[in-house]
């Protein structure tokens, strides 16, 4: 009997791992091995004809820390995250509250908010180019109505990153709205009625009941927004290419530039490791802090 049970268990194990094997192979090829290979190549120098590849330890990292561009890029990305995360979440929440209230034209409003989500970032950048172009662009034309001078929004360091930020917020707010909408629809109607009977003001109801109940969703969206602030860089290729003088350069774009424009793989690898570290911290926060807090809702 126990022989039979052992056989059955072994058969199940084989079956389980057989089912997993395609995923295991692909994940190893395109996630686990590349992560380790990145760490490995970040510890070696770049091979040239005269100097073969050699182990340099932390030298690539030290180079980055001594590279002023690196710090500009880090600062830009922190600023990018610091603005896009709260701003897009705030707009998403306002959109959801509106799209969930009893207003007319609700269908149109929802569609309009969500539409940017289905557009490629490259297309979004092209659309916004029409707004930002100096002289001819929509923004300048509106400005000239009020007698304001022409502004080169994408061409000057003070405004370039803001121009990038606005496109990102425009693109992702509607996406986050959907999640808030879903969460809003789970709030029981009786709470609203009870608040109405008590004569609670709308602001108090929103602040004391709606916002706390949306908290788990806010944290979920927050994590996604942080990840997006690393990931969403496609529009840089169209709008600014990271310029002028690195004013709008973000980390992932910098990695791409190091690896595929300057062919400097070791430094790109060191940069990648640092991004993986940050994402790992985000994952840990999500795993140990947020999941634990939101489980008993």
């Amino acid at each position, binding site marked *: 009997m126990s022989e039979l049970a052992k056989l059955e268990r072994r058969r*199940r*194990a084989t*079956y*389980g*791992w057989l*089912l997993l094997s*395609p*995923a295991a192979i*692909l*994940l190893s*090829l*395109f*996630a*686990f091995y*590349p992560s380790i*290979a*990145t760490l490995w*190549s970040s510890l070696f120098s770049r091979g040239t004809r005269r100097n073969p590849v050699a182990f340099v330890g932390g030298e690539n990292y030290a180079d980055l820390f001594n590279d002023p561009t690196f710090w500009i890029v880090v600062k830009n990305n922190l600023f990018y995250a610091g603005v896009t995360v709260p701003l897009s979440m705030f707009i998403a929440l306002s959109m959801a509250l*509106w*799209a969930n*209230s*009893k*207003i007319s*034209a609700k269908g*149109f*409003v929802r*569609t*309009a908010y969500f*539409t940017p989500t*289905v*557009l*490629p*970032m*490259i*297309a979004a950048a*092209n*659309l*916004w180019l*029409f707004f930002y172009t100096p002289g001819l662009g929509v923004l300048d*034309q509106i400005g000239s109505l009020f007698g304001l001078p022409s502004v080169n929004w994408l061409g000057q360091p003070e405004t370039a990153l803001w121009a990038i930020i606005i496109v990102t917020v*425009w693109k992702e707010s*509607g996406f986050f709205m*959907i*999640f808030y*909408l*879903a969460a809003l629809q789970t709030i029981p109607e009786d709470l609203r009625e009870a608040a109405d009977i008590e004569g609670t003001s709308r602001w108090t109801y929103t602040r004391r009941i709606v916002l706390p109940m949306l908290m788990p969703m806010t944290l979920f969206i927050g994590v996604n927004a942080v990840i997006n602030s*690393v*990931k969403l860089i*496609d529009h840089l*290729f169209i709008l600014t290419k990271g310029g002028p003088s690195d004013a709008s350069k973000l980390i*992932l774009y910098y*990695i*791409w530039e190091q*690896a595929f424009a300057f062919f400097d793989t070791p430094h790109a*690898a060191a940069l*990648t490791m640092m*991004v*993986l570290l940050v*994402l790992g911290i985000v*994952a840990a926060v999500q795993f140990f802090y947020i999941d634990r807090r939101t489980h008993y809702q």
Partner: protein
Amino acid sequence: MSRYTKSFDTIGAVLLAIVWIAPLLFAVWAAVHSTSDAVNFRLTSPWTLDNFRTAWDGAPWAKYFLNTFILVTIVLIGQFIVTTLAGYAFAQVQFPGKDFAFLLVLLQLFILPEVLIVENYAMVSRLGLFDSILGIGMPYMASAFGIFLMRQAFKSVPIELDEAARIEGCSRLGILLKVYVPLAKPTYLAYALVSVSTHWNNFLWPLIVTNSPDTRPLTVGLSIFGAPENGVDISIISAATIMSVAPLLVAFLIFQRQFVQAFLRAGIK
């Protein structure tokens, strides 16, 4: 809600909605007017389709469309196969090392393929898939997100159905295909919509692994077409942009409910 706040809300919501679709509307406006009419906002100027004609002749769009179509199809088929098998294993099969394997899969949610471009590029070249559509799609096939989604869907299937099918003499793979897969249809639909729109829109990775018009998807083609070095003007760029987003946009407007439901279903779980 008083009538006063209601109309106030309506105005605010509609204003924001107009601001939100303005970029798209301006692009449509620019695409159907000559450049000078478009940038000077001559409202009564005649409409024209010349920009579309010029844009269409300026790049191998038909090839780009076909490439994108093949790409999203390959990715979707690959994802369906890989995530179905893995999701089923995690949901319904008991085997040693399962929890650890699942943890590794979840880890991939944070090791974004976008971040690993350098080593993934090396891997794709090593496999001889550089500048091929399969090479663009392959890193996305074992999606941790999809595996997670399928696991949740299969977990909600009552075990009695599984047992009944087994008594009927159905093979293990037969049970998966005839019992689990049909019951998870809404999840597949949701996942398909999310996957297709993600990969239709993906740019950075296809930019890196493609090197010729034969493999380039729409997004990469559009970025090359619109590059300032090519000196294309705003009306023609707008026409090209509208053209390349049209299929997905029209599909979205028609299947709006399903799209929104899909993103919700995919995101919440």
